[in-house]
């Protein structure tokens, strides 16, 4: 569904990605794990057209989307929930969700998806008219995911959805990720919480200093000694 080939990104003089290649199969949950600065976020940002790759190709559904405008990429039902949630705190919850469907025209299907988001996150329904900035971190994360779902994604990418959230809410978020996946949305996930993300992943890539250091099935990596020592702290 999504294929990244030999992706290179430079930030000024810094060579942030040094030839990353990934493959995301339809219907799966794939995760990227690795330390800070390994290049996980940069990879997702480059896929969304927020960073310009200096070399490499990004193929989504058999189309080359390298260097395409972000708007076009969103239109092709590929979306990113950015790190740190980034909800529009000055807008109401409802308005945030409506903006998720900014490029969509079919009101009926927008309403359907709104209902779907409210079913997934009942709290958002209760807080529709509230300004997003007044909600707790966990609720804002739910809104960020809900807003992304309103773009009707085929592939949903999430950057650290559990960052800074209480353990109970983290668990809840991971359950919802699984649920969204079961409804047919492919997921590409970045996590610091390597254990929780490997447990739900079909396949995972371990990134280190801008390169793919290891890859394999989620459960295999979970039991891999090297990964255990470096990322799982056991």
């Amino acid at each position, binding site marked *: 569904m999504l294929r990244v080939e030999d992706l290179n990104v430079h930030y000024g003089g810094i060579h942030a990605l040094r030839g990353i290649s990934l493959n995301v199969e339809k219907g799966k949950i794939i995760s990227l794990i690795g330390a800070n600065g390994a290049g996980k976020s940069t990879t997702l940002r480059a896929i969304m057209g*927020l960073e310009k790759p200096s070399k490499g190709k990004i193929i989504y559904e058999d189309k080359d989307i390298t260097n395409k405008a972000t708007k076009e990429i969103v239109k092709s039902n590929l979306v990113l929930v950015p790190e740190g949630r*980034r909800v529009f705190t*000055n807008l109401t919850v409802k308005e945030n969700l*409506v903006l998720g469907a900014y490029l969509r025209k079919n009101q009926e299907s927008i309403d359907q998806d709104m209902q779907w988001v409210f079913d997934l996150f009942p709290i958002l329904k209760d807080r529709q008219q509230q300004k997003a900035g007044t909600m707790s971190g966990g609720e804002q994360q739910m809104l960020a995911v809900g807003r992304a779902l309103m773009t009707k994604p085929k592939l949903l990418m999430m950057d650290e959805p559990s960052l800074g959230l209480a353990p109970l809410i983290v668990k809840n978020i991971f359950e919802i990720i699984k649920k969204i996946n079961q409804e047919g949305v492919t997921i590409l996930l970045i996590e610091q919480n390597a254990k929780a993300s490997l447990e739900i992943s079909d396949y995972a890539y371990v990134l280190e200093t801008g390169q793919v250091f290891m890859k394999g099935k989620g459960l295999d990596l979970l039991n891999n000694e090297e990964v255990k020592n470096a990322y799982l702290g056991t």
Partner: protein
Amino acid sequence: MDIELFFQQLANAISLGSLYALIAIGYTMVYGILRLINFAHGEIFMFGTYIAFYAMTSFLLPWGGAFLIAIVLTVIFGLLVERAAYKPLRNSPRMSVMISAIGTSFLIQNLAIVIFGGRPKSFPVPDLFNTVIHLGNISIVSITFITPIITAIVLVFLLYIVDKTKTGMAMRAVSKDYEAARLMGIDVNWVITITFGIGSGLAAIGGIMWGLKYPSLLPMMGLMPGLKCFIAAVIGGIGNIRGAVVGGFLLGLIEIMLIAALPALTGYRDAFAFVLLIVILLIKPTGIMGKNIAEKV
């Protein structure tokens, strides 16, 4: 001050205040989206007035058509300014954009001297705007009534766009977070274009009404109203449309009432605005309606 003089001056104050409000909205909207004080806004306002003048005098258009053309051309002019002076600096430090804005302001002023001439031109005022209305012992020129009415209509329309439409939502989203807005598929450059277009259109409407009120046109005429309306926007809380309206009315009211109460100070008329700016910056730097809430991250 007797009661009649008070009402007379109150009408003037509301009229001037609504004019300030119109222009202040342009500053505040552009600031909200670009975090840029568009110092060329006063020159866009001046441009609008001159276009209306030439449309009526050189092209002999009826005032309605002339005003419409002036608004349209001023919007285009505002968009050109944005394209030429601000868009190339989109990823530059804010200071560079501000310097560019100041430079653009000087450039347009001086071009106007060359093209329009430095001598004052007299703006033709149609009878509709120049009729004296008598209410008891108070007599007021009709433009004094028309200005606040036009401002109110424009304001309702504008607030509808910003608060209720999807484009308005996109504008508010862009003002908060460019990148998150792009991730929703919003074309940030398009939103900036719309914002500049609306701001320039309001400047043109303000400029035309200014010409009807003070029918002497000069290339530098945008400077002082521009600065004052910037101050009005800051007083109200820059970035906030309702704040710009409050700031505009407040500035108009204080300016007129102070002169009416203390005629000896008439010469310092323009200085009040700056005193007010300093006071506001000392007491409440975020402005009257500016919010400074801690946001969760």
